[in-house]
């Protein structure tokens, strides 16, 4: 037992009267990658922060977390400061906010280095360059003089990892290190972490909700649920023979590429949406050239058809969604919404046309007015478009999205994320739209909730027959729902076709790379022999 890097035992964290973590225990051996997996509210991030004493003052922490022989829980601040960044360091979710925007990369590395080591400025500079090189940043010496905003998302995360590695720690705690990144970048960062573990022997505590990431990187998995350990098992056993029903539910909820039988193509000549040579530009700030978010896209969604629009960040998929919902006018090209040319519609005509359009947003938390009740939220489009008998429709709509009628009088803040998204769907479908634009409707949700919402959406579409433009960065989610798929890259269409062809036998080089980058929710078989 003594040779483990970190031993957590009976860890309990309370925020006031609400327990967040209730007696969690696990251990990490040198060079081992342990994944702490769970849905939101399971206590995985709180556990990690409690270990380093980084929780706000309102938290009470009990139990034990030993780094080697040293107890960290209740240790005085100076001791913890010695540990933080020196023996245990952290990598956070969003590299865009994890770096201080007003300091250069080099300065931020130097600060960390000199917090623990006596180095001259020149030595620290040299060490910063070595670290940037170690994490695969090209031309590291020049990069030390750059500010975070001058780097891409993937490079920023590499810098965050370089900072974590600065003082040669025994353990890196990585809290959702790839969640804010595109899949191709995620694949690079996962490869980097694996490589660093192999080369430097650093143990990693990986906190994630993504089973694909777990399968790619972890040696052992600790599944958390409501602040308790559900299961603690080697990664292969967990995926092949989960001991607990909850683990099985988690694994079954993960959408997988290529598991759905090919959908029957929708053959119709009537269009729900037709974009021809669509161009949308955003003005550049302060003398910079305009930004072409959408650059000559032609696409069509037939009546009753579900078209998946996939692409990485900056591909223009959300901009197309806004045009399709009549929220944004094209810079050039034409957009026909339900056979009406968007560019010729007056403001009033457009408002009337919106009655036949539904829009489902990514974050149900911020797209519902917190001051209205659920019933008022759903009734709003009916009221705006002067539909009578709105009150009679509420129970019917709530029933359609499988929410109990008693929820009508609640406020959105009293609902869970999944319930809120159901309310959002009920609102989008209140007017029986002919076209639903859904922009990442499940990416803010936990996997088990996501699975339920996707199933609901598929059922509703089959029953009501609306056309749907489904926008997502998640290829597996799109594969589970769409008839046809369109792959976007930098504002242009890269590939288009039936979902089973595009996502299983991609022709375009870029699509092939995208599909390959999706982490498979099962550990690689080659590694199985070593365990």
């Amino acid at each position, binding site marked *: 037992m003594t040779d483990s890097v970190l031993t957590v035992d009976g860890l309990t964290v309370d925020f006031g009267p609400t327990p967040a973590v209730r007696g969690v225990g696990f251990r990490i051996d040198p060079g081992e990658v342990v994944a702490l997996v769970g849905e939101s509210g399971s206590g995985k991030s709180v556990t990690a922060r409690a270990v*380093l004493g*980084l929780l706000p*003052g309102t938290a009470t922490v009990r139990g034990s977390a030993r780094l080697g022989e040293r107890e960290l829980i209740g240790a005085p*601040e100076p001791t913890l*400061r*010695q*540990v*933080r*960044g*020196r023996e245990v*360091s*952290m990598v*956070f*979710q*969003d590299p*865009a*906010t*994890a*770096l*201080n*925007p*007003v*300091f250069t990369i080099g300065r931020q590395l130097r*600060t*960390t280095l000199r*917090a*623990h080591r006596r180095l001259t400025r020149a030595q620290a500079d040299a060490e910063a360059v070595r670290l940037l090189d170690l994490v695969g940043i090209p031309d590291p010496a020049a990069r030390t003089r750059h*500010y975070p*905003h*001058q780097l*891409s998302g993937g490079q920023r995360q590499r810098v*965050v990892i370089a*900072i*974590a590695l*600065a*003082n040669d720690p025994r353990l890196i*705690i990585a809290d959702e290190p790839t969640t804010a990144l595109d899949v191709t970048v995620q694949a690079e960062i996962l490869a980097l972490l694996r490589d660093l573990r192999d080369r430097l022997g650093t143990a990693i505590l990986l906190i994630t909700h993504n089973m694909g990431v777990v399968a790619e990187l972890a040696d052992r998995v600790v599944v958390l649920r409501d602040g308790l350990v559900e299961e603690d098992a080697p990664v292969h056993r967990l995926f092949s023979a989960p001991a607990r029903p909850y683990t099985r539910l988690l694994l079954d909820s993960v959408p997988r590429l290529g598991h759905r039988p090919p959908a029957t193509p929708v053959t119709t000549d009537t269009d729900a949406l037709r974009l021809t040579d669509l161009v949308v530009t955003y003005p550049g*700030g*302060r*003398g*910079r050239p305009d930004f072409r978010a959408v650059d000559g896209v032609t696409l069509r969604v037939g009546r009753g058809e579900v078209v998946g629009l996939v692409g990485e960040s900056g591909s223009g998929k959300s901009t197309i969604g806004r045009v399709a919902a009549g929220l944004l006018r094209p810079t050039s090209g034409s957009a026909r919404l339900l056979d009406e040319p968007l560019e010729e519609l007056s403001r009033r005509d457009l408002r009337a046309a919106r009655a036949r359009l539904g829009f489902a947003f990514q974050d149900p938390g911020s797209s519902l007015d917190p001051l209205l009740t659920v019933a008022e939220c759903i009734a709003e489009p009916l009221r705006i478009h002067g539909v009578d008998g709105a009150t009679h429709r509420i129970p019917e709509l709530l029933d359609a999205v499988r929410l109990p009628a008693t929820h009508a009088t609640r406020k959105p803040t009293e609902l869970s994320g999944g319930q809120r998204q159901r309310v959002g769907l009920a609102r989008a479908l209140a007017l029986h739209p002919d076209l639903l634009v859904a922009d990442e409707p499940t990416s803010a949700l936990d996997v088990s909730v996501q699975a339920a919402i996707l199933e609901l959406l598929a059922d509703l579409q089959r029953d009501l027959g609306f056309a749907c433009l489904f926008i997502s960065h998640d290829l597996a989610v799109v594969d589970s729902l769409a008839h046809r798929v369109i792959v976007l890259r930098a504002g242009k269409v890269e590939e288009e076709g039936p979902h089973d062809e595009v996502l299983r036998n991609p022709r375009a080089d870029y699509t092939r790379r995208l599909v390959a980058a999706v982490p498979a929710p099962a550990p690689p078989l080659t590694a199985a022999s070593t365990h």
Partner: protein
Amino acid sequence: MTRYLLRRVPSAVAVLWLASVLVFLVLRAVPGDAASALAGPDATPDVVAAIRHDLGLDLPVAEQYARWVGGLLSADLGRSYLVGGDIADLVADGLANTLTLTLAALLLAVLVALVLGPLWAVSRGGWLDRALTAFHTAAVALPTFATGVLLILVFGVVFRLLPTGGVPPGGLLDRVDITAQYLLMPAVCLALPVSAVLTGFLAETLRAELRQDYVLTALAAGVSRRSVVFGHTLRNALPVTMTALGLQTGALLGGAVLVESIFAWPGLGLLVEQGITRRDYPVVQVLLMLSVAVFVVIQLLTDVAHAWLDPRVRLGGAR
């Protein structure tokens, strides 16, 4: 940056022009007549009419305005009705005093904000938090004329520690220690509300910055809490605080008028006050235009400082 500044010039000119029209019209709308005020209560209508003609007040308003602006553009600020001298000379006399006072107040306000702002940001719910809240509320709420009179009463009359008003007899530069004694009360009086607003703004901005992810990154890297506040968040809070400071200079300029009258500080504020009570339009017009111009320039400087402090503005937006 130069191009960005050049783009701002048209709007700055527009603001100045609009201000000149407003200043001119508002002063014409003030009840009372400059000519009869000048002529005195016993003057005959003929005398008043002669004075009015002499000052050009019998011309159409548009023509009066055109003459005034034309003069300003050719660097002729006009002549005071009352004193008779060139306004440029009057302004030059008061300018040094007012600059000394406002700069001292500005410095004081910035120092107070830089010390109390971070302290307030990190003290949550303790006695320090309550004390600073009380200071903030009192300093923002108390009008300058009340604090000024109170200060004079306490330190000038009861304890007789500081002079109750005026400027040092030998001039500002004669003996610095004496100048400091004369300057202290008016500067504190002028700085108080500005320092409170700045302190509150800086503390609030710092609290928001302390919730940012990079703070957690720094803490997790073993950086001490103190250097996180002073090294990381303060630097991030400065650009916006700079903008708030720019807006507060307006409050300083306005406050100077009151403070200078309270402490008999012979600066531009006192000149404005005298000009208004004696209906000396040309003097008031020029001084108001001057303060507008100062404000416009400070706004430009604030933007430059903001860009200089924030690399995201300086080196172009995020990609």
